[in-house]
Each structure stands twice: as structure tokens, then as C-alpha cells.
């Protein structure tokens, strides 16, 4: 029932490796317990992203190379991957739970008629079974899922849950994967425009000022932005604020937004619903401001200020001068 390899699908985004793939290579190595970790990449001829992948020390990098992967559709990708998997059934395949990962993985799953668990927060082996830890009913309930009878075991894993670690002690073997590119003209990618997230790149921010429904006013948004600037950080929001003119979905922190890991997080007017808090578990120092002393957000805070968000912002700005 499959060999003893863990394959990590390396996703390409705007001609770069999508960072989740590196995180998953590190995670796969940590849980491998003797299994071989193979990074699988489908890339155009000249891109040579294997030099980036090497840094993270998978045992092997297997490359599907074809110029047509530039702008390939989900059907073509799933078809190519299927050919490689069929030839050499791995024990598990791990995809990033990005939009692309979540689109291609289920098509591959259907071809293989195996199980696929979406958006895992953790994975580990119990014997030969990969235990797939997944939230359900919005992160309020966790469940463990296994796929006992079929291989490969397939999962998509949420971005930024695991840390990517450079490992130069291993010199990965680089191999070409055998497959044939089958063009599928039923869907054509006509254009792809990168979206500029530089103004709101929360993922890597060291300081985050997070605004919630209780702190929203035009004035507070302005004050929060000033404070963020002073502390060299970014402003993020809870979900209700993504409906406000100043913010979009890319500013959202939480289960259906971005997972963040700042050194300092200041929560303003945020109650602390689990869908929000799962996104901030990795924050180091947490200060929360809320008018309600019993708000759940205080349970995960180092400092609490019971009072008005606006007053707190002004006091911070005043005293930082």
C-alpha cells in the first residue's frame, strides 16, 4: 500500500515558491521518522526553483518540467501530478491550503479515489496513518481524521502554521519526474495580475495593531495607523471591519484571514472569538484593550486595559513622543 515517501507539493506563485511549501518541507522532515521527504515541483524550463527548495533540505526534489506549466490550468496540473503519483504511490502528499492547493488537490484526490483532508492545523504519524487535525464548524471544534485504507494519504495544510527552517546538512537528490504534458484547451488562463499586498503584509509584521468592531471609528483607524507607524508595524482587523471602507479581506486576521506571528500584538475592541484567536496564537507579547473585563481576549493577553480603545490609542501616542 504505497511506498514510504512523504511528498510535499511545492507551489509556484508569481514565479516564486509560495512560502507555505517551505514550511511543509520542514514539517514533513520533523514527522518523517525515517520516511523519505520528496519535494515535488511542476515548473517551466528556465525557472530552477530547486535551488531555493534545496535550502530546506528535503531528501529529494522531483521535478516535472515543461514550459507549459507557465499558465497551466488546474486540470493540466492535476493530470500531470496524477501520472507521477500513479507510477510511484507515496505514503502521503501534503499540499499548501492556498487557493491553488485547495483547487488542484481535490481533482487529484478524485483521480486517485483516496481521502483528502482540507486545511489541517497539524499532522503527525500514528503508525502508518497520518493523523490529520482539522478545525470544523469554524475553528470552534477540532477533529482528528485518518485515511486508513488508501494511499496516498492527502492533506492541505493551512499557511503559516509551521515554521520553515533552513537545513543545509542534506544535499537533496534532484530527479526528473516522468510524465507527459496533456494540454487541456477547455480552460485557458488569459492573464494573471499579481496583487500588491505590500501595504498590508501582516504575515511577516513584527508589530500589529488589530482593530475590532468595538474600536471602529474613522478617528481610531487614523490613530491606529499612526501608532503602527511609530512602532514600525501594520494595522490588521477582525472580520466585521473588512466591510468598512478603509479595509479589505487582505487586512483580516484569523481563521478565514491571515495567521500572524508578531512580536507585539495590540488588540483593540476585539472580543476574542476563536475564529480570531486561532490567527494570533503565535503572537509573543499581547496587549488587549476592551471595555468588558470578561472579554475572552484577555485570556490570551499579557497586558489588559479595561477601557475605551480610542483613549488608549491617544495615551500611547501621547506617551511615545
Amino acid at each position, binding site marked *: 500500500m504505497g511506498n514510504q515517501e512523504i511528498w510535499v507539493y511545492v507551489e509556484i506563485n508569481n514565479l516564486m515558491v509560495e512560502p507555505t511549501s517551505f514550511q511543509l518541507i520542514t514539517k514533513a522532515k520533523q514527522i518523517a521518522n525515517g520516511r523519505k521527504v520528496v519535494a515535488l515541483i511542476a515548473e517551466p524550463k528556465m525557472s530552477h526553483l530547486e535551488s531555493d527548495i534545496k535550502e530546506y533540505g528535503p531528501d529529494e526534489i522531483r521535478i516535472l518540467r515543461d514550459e507549459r506549466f507557465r499558465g497551466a490550468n488546474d486540470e493540466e496540473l492535476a493530470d500531470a501530478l496524477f501520472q507521477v503519483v500513479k507510477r510511484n504511490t507515496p505514503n502521503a502528499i501534503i499540499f499548501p491550503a492556498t487557493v491553488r492547493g485547495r483547487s488542484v488537490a481535490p481533482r487529484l484526490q478524485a483521480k486517485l479515489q483516496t481521502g483528502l483532508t482540507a486545511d489541517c492545523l497539524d499532522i503527525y504519524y500514528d503508525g502508518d496513518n497520518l493523523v490529520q487535525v482539522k478545525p470544523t464548524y469554524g475553528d470552534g471544534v477540532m477533529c482528528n481524521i485518518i485515511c486508513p485504507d488508501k494511499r496516498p494519504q492527502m492533506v492541505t495544510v493551512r499557511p503559516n502554521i509551521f515554521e520553515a527552517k533552513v537545513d543545509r546538512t542534506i544535499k537533496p537528490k534532484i530527479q526528473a519526474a516522468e510524465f507527459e504534458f496533456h494540454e487541456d484547451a477547455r*480552460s485557458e488562463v488569459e492573464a*494573471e495580475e499579481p496583487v500588491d499586498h505590500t501595504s498590508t503584509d501582516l504575515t511577516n509584521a513584527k508589530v500589529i495593531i488589530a482593530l475590532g468592531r468595538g474600536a471602529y471609528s474613522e478617528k481610531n483607524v487614523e490613530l491606529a495607523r499612526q501608532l503602527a507607524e511609530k512602532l514600525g508595524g501594520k494595522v490588521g482587523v477582525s472580520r466585521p471591519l473588512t466591510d468598512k471602507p478603509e479595509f479589505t479581506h487582505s487586512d483580516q486576521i484569523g481563521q478565514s484571514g491571515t495567521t500572524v506571528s508578531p512580536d*507585539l500584538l495590540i488588540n483593540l475592541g476585539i472580543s476574542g472569538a476563536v475564529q480570531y484567536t486561532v490567527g494570533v496564537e503565535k503572537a509573543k507579547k499581547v496587549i488587549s484593550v476592551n471595555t468588558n473585563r470578561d472579554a475572552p481576549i484577555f485570556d490570551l493577553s499579557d497586558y489588559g486595559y479595561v477601557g475605551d480603545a480610542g483613549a*488608549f490609542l491617544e495615551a500611547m501616542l501621547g506617551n511615545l513622543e
Partner: protein
Amino acid sequence: MKIIVCVKQVPENDSVKIDPKTNDMVRTGAQGVMNPFDRNAIETALELKEKNGGQVILLIMGPDSFTEVLRDGLAMGADSAYLLSSKEFGGADTLATAYTLVAGIKKIGKPDVILFGRQSEDADTGQVGPIVAEDLNIPQATFATKVETISATTLEVDRDLESSIQKVEIKLPAEITVRSEINFPRYETPINIVKSFDKPLTIWNEKDLNVDPDKIGKKGSQTIVTKVYAPKKETKQVKFLSKKAGDAAKTIINELDL
């Protein structure tokens, strides 16, 4: 244009929790509502119909109580609805759900477009749409933020891939999953609610669908849930600051060396 929209009923927001002592699932609040993303899928279908003519058909797999959600969709303006209901369908994972929906789609008769929500709020996988597309061997455009008619056989879809927006031209028949950003679902008007009760609602079971009994429900599912529990929350010892904002700010600035 013949359009099938797959919809699902889900528990209301935050109405399902785990009792931390017993680890039992506790449900509060209403029985269930239409999966919010599926409303966007129905809206997309209705707009396609307004432009191209045709019909909008709703399809759901689930218990008989799910007819409520179908009535909702009919009241939004869909033309007819199908419920695939049987004990045998219970416990299905995405693979078995998709297999059953595909059997329903084949019996309804091949559509031009099959629409899905980007994901369900309870299972939260977003997998059912792509599996259905693969099983039917049709192309897909997932996470759509815009769907435009190019011709009777071609649509143009914008996909939001998070770090980029992709424009795809897709030949029908095709499968599309939609994001909530795509539109504002219309409300059910009183007239449409009244009308919805006269619209055809068909219920099929596994015999009507002529499905392989090994591929439906729990039996047809490759994944097994081994444990359900409350997420472990790390709690910190919070230090409450002075009620005076100025003093609170000074304490933080000093202690954190800001």
C-alpha cells in the same frame, strides 16, 4: 443555459461548540441555514439566467429537513430543486458526497454550468466542487470573483488566487465555485416566497439514482473521524493595567521597552 447550483445547509454561526468536560458536541441556536457562500452561487446562477435564458436548478444531498434551504433558494428565484435523501447517504466525506451529487446531476441531465460555494462553513473543505468537476471530466474555475458571459458556450471568470487575480476563459460545460465577494445575494420577496411553494421539488434516494452502494455514505468515504474535541487554548496570566489610560500606556512603554 442550464445551471445547477449545489447548496448545503449548515448550522448557524457559532452554534456548535464542544463541552470541554464531556467532549460532546453541543448545538445551540437554529436548526440550520443555507451555507452563506451558496447564496452567492445562487445569485451568480440567477444573473447568468437573466443574461442567457435557461433555468436554475438547485441540488442538495442531505436529510429531508434540508428541503427548507431548498425553499429558500426557490424563493430567491431558482426554478426547481432536487434533494438526494437517504439514510444510506449519511456519514459521507467529500469523495462520497461528490459521487452522490454527480449521480444526481447525471439523472437531472447534463447542465452547462454547475455552481458551488467556495466552501461550506461547517465542513469547510471546498473540495466537493472540484471533485464533482473531475468526476464529470469538466473544467473548473474556483474561487471566482466575477463571471461573465462571452458566448453561449464560453464564460470568462476572474479567480482571486490571493496573491494574484487570474482571468480564465472556460468552455461549457464547466464547474465554478464562487467567493462571497462576487455579488450581493438578492433577498427573497414575499411574492417569490409564495411562488416557491408551487415550484417542483423532487426527492430521490439511492435506488432512484442507481448508485454503487460501496461508493455512497460512510462506506464510500475514505476518511474516518477518529476524535472530536475542543481546541486546546493556551491561556496567559493577564496583568490588568491602571484604568488611567496615560498610566497604562506608560507602564507598557516601560515594561516592553517601546
